[in-house]
C-alpha cells in the first residue's frame, strides 16, 4: 500500500485566504482575470469543506457584495467583469451612477468571469435574487461567433473552446439554452478533435488535456440537456480514453500533451475528462495522489510540479482531482483522513452539494425547484 504524506489542508486553506486578502504587484497580470482567481480560492475552501465553519458570515456577505458588484448591464447584455480594473472612480456621484448603470465598450462582462462568478456565488449559498437571467442569455448570444465558438468579451477575436464551455455551463445552470446556437457550437467542438483522440484549443491545434476536458464536458452538458447521446462514436470514445490514460506519467501525475512533463492541473483536466467518459476506475488514483502530495508547498498551496511555487489555480484543480480520485488508504493509516474530500461534479467543476444549490437556485424560479 502506498505511503502518502498528509494532505496539508490547513496550509492550502491559508494559501487561498492569503490570496483573497491581497496580491503583490508582481501579480498585476491577474488584473484582467481577478474573479477567476477568486473562484479558485473560494472553490478550494469549498472543496476543503470549510467555507461555513472558517469564514465568518460577515465576510461571506462582503465577498458576495463584491461579486455582485461585478455583474454589469449594457448594450451586449448582462454578465460579470473580471474586476473594476477598467471602471473609473468618479468624483460626482451622478457620474458614478451613470458608470454603474451601464458599462462602456471597454469595461464589458467577460464570459469566463461570468461562469466563475456564478459558481463562486453558489458556493457562498447566494439566493440569486439579483441575477439578470434574461440579460445573461442576451450576453451569451452576442458572444457567439459565426463559426459557433464564443469570444471572451463581445466583439473580441479571442475565442476558443474555453469560452464555449463557459457558454454551455451557464446555459446548463440557467436551464435555458436559448442564448446559444447548440448545433453550430457542437460542430465547432468537432473541428477541434485531433488524430490523437484529444481536442485542441481551436481548429487545427494540438490535442491538449485542458481543452479535451472542456470539449467532453460541453458535449455531455448538451446531451444531458437535450437527451441526445452519441456525440462520440464508440471507437472515438475508446481513442479518447486511451489517449487520456496514456497521459498519466510514471510519476503518477498527468501531462497535458503527449510527451510533456506531468503538471498538477492536468490531473484534474485529464482525470475529469476520464470521469465524464465513465472511465474513472481505470486511473491509478494512488499514484495520482502521491504525485499531488509531492506538489504540496511547504508553507501551503499546491504547485504545478514538485519544487515549484504554488498558486490558487493549481491548488484548486489538485484538490478537485483528489475529490474525484481519492487514494485508497487503509483505515489504520494516520494520514488517511486528511485526504478525504466531498464528491465533485466534474461537469460544472464544483462540489456536488454546490451543484445541487446551483440547480435549485439559478434557473428561472418558475421552472426551477421541483
Amino acid at each position, binding site marked *: 500500500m502506498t505511503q502518502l504524506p498528509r494532505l496539508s489542508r490547513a496550509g492550502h486553506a491559508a494559501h487561498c485566504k492569503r490570496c483573497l486578502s*491581497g496580491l503583490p504587484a508582481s501579480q498585476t497580470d491577474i488584473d484582467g482575470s481577478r474573479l477567476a482567481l477568486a473562484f479558485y480560492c473560494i472553490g478550494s475552501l469549498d472543496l476543503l469543506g470549510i467555507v461555513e465553519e472558517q469564514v465568518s458570515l460577515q465576510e461571506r456577505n462582503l465577498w458576495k457584495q463584491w461579486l455582485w458588484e461585478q455583474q454589469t448591464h449594457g448594450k451586449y447584455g448582462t454578465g460579470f467583469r473580471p474586476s473594476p480594473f477598467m471602471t473609473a*472612480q468618479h468624483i460626482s456621484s451622478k457620474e458614478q451612477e451613470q458608470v454603474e448603470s451601464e458599462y462602456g465598450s471597454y469595461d464589458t462582462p467577460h464570459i469566463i468571469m461570468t461562469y466563475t462568478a456564478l459558481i463562486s456565488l453558489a458556493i457562498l449559498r447566494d439566493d440569486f435574487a439579483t441575477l439578470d437571467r434574461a440579460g445573461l442569455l442576451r450576453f451569451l448570444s452576442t458572444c457567439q461567433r459565426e463559426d459557433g465558438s464564443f469570444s471572451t468579451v463581445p466583439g*473580441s477575436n479571442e475565442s476558443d473552446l474555453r469560452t464555449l464551455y463557459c457558454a454551455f455551463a451557464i446555459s446548463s445552470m440557467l436551464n435555458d439554452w436559448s442564448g446559444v446556437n447548440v448545433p453550430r457550437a457542437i460542430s465547432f467542438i468537432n473541428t477541434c478533435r485531433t*488524430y490523437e483522440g484529444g481536442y485542441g484549443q481551436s*481548429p487545427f491545434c494540438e490535442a491538449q488535456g485542458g481543452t479535451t476536458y472542456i470539449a467532453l464536458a460541453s458535449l455531455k452538458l448538451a446531451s444531458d440537456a437535450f437527451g441526445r447521446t452519441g456525440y462520440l462514436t464508440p471507437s472515438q470514445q475508446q481513442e479518447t480514453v486511451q489517449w487520456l490514460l496514456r497521459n498519466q506519467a*510514471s510519476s*503518477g501525475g498527468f501531462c497535458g500533451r*503527449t510527451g510533456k512533463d506531468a503538471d498538477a492541473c492536468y490531473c484534474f483536466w485529464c482525470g475529469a475528462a476520464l470521469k465524464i467518459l465513465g472511465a474513472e476506475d481505470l486511473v491509478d488514483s494512488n499514484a495520482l495522489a502521491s504525485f499531488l502530495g509531492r506538489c504540496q508547498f511547504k508553507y501551503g498551496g499546491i504547485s504545478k510540479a514538485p519544487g515549484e511555487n504554488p498558486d490558487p489555480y493549481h491548488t484548486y484543480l489538485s484538490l478537485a482531482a483528489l475529490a474525484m480520485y481519492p487514494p485508497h488508504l487503509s483505515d489504520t493509516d494516520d494520514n488517511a483522513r486528511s485526504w478525504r474530500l466531498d464528491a465533485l461534479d466534474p461537469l460544472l467543476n464544483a462540489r456536488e452539494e454546490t451543484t445541487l444549490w446551483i440547480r435549485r437556485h439559478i434557473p428561472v424560479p418558475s421552472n426551477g425547484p421541483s
Partner: protein
Amino acid sequence: MPSKAAADTPLFAEREEWADVQPLEQYEGVNPIAPIFYSPEYKDATGYFRAIVQAGEKSARVLELTENIIRQNPAHYSAWCYRYETLLALLPPPAEDADAGAQPDIPPLLAAELALMDELAVTFLKTYQVWHHRRLLVPLARQPRRELAFIQRGLAVDAKNYHTWSYRQWLLAACYGRGAAADPAMPDAVLDEAAGVWAGELDFVDAALAQDVRNNSAWHHRFFVVYGARGQADSEAERARIFRRELIYTKQNIAIAPSNPSAWNYLRGVLRETNTPFAAVQDFARLYAYPHSADETRDVVDLDNPAPGADAELPCVQAMEFLADAWETEAGAEMWKSLANEHDTIRRQYWEHRIRDAHQTIKPAVE
C-alpha cells in the same frame, strides 16, 4: 510585473505632453476580493488609460500609453483592444487605385507595430493576448511569409510553445488553406506561393524532429500539413504515394527512438485517416513488441520494416499496445497481461479492463 522600461521612464503624471488629461483612478467597491497592490507606475498609466478611453481619443500618444501598460501587464486585454482600434484609426486608408489582389506596401506605423510585436511575443510567449493582437495584424500587413520566419525564431526559444504552434497553424490555414483562394482580398502573390509554402512545412517539421524526435507539437504539425488543412489529395495515386511516404517516415523515426509515443500516435492517426487496419503494419510493430532475440539479423535492410537498433530498449510499450489493438481480441490478451503485470503497471487497471472487455462485445478501435 513591473518592467524595466516602465521604471526608467517618468510617470505620465510628470509629463508635460499629458498635462491636458485628468487621470481617472480605478473604482474599488466595498471590500474588494484579492485586491492587487499595484505599483505606482501601473496605477499612473492605467489612470491615464481610463481617461483616454472615456474621452475616446485615438492618437499617436495612445500607442505609447498602451505599450507602457502592456509591458507591465501583457494580459490587459482592454489595452490591447484599444491599441488595435487606435492603430486602425491612425493607419492611412488603402490606396484607392490599388489592385485588390496586389501586395500592399507596409506603412511605417504598421512596420513599427510588427517590430514591437516581434519583441513582445518573445518576452510574453505564454500570454494569449499577444497572439490575438498578432492575428489581427495579419490581414493588415498581408505578409504571411514574414510571420512564418518570425514563428521559426520563436520556436527556437521554446520548441513546444502551444500559442506559437497554434498561430502557425492558424496562419497557414488562413492564408494558404482552402478558404484563402476564395478570399478576394488575398494578394495573388500570397496565393501563388502556397504550394511552395506547404512543401516547406514538411522540411520545417523535419528540422524540428531532427532537434527533438519526441516533440509532439512537430508531429501534430506534420499531420496538420499532410491531412488536416487541405484534406486528402484528389487522385488515388497521389493519396497512395502520400500514405506510403508517411508510413516510411514514421517507421524510420520509430526505429531511431522506439518508445516515442508521439510517433506511435502519428502512425495510428495515419492508419485511421486512411481507413487502413492496424494489422497492415503488424510485421513492423512485431519487431518492437518483444525483447531482443539471439538470432536477430541486421544484414538485410528492409525499408518497409526498419528494425530497432541493437541498443534499443525492448519490448516497447507502445508497440505492444499497438499490436494488441491490431490483433483479434484473444491474441491481444497475452500482450495486455504482460503490460499490466510488468511493462506498464501504472495502467494496470486499464489493461485488465481491456482483457475483461475482450470477452465481451466491444471490438478494438481498428475497423
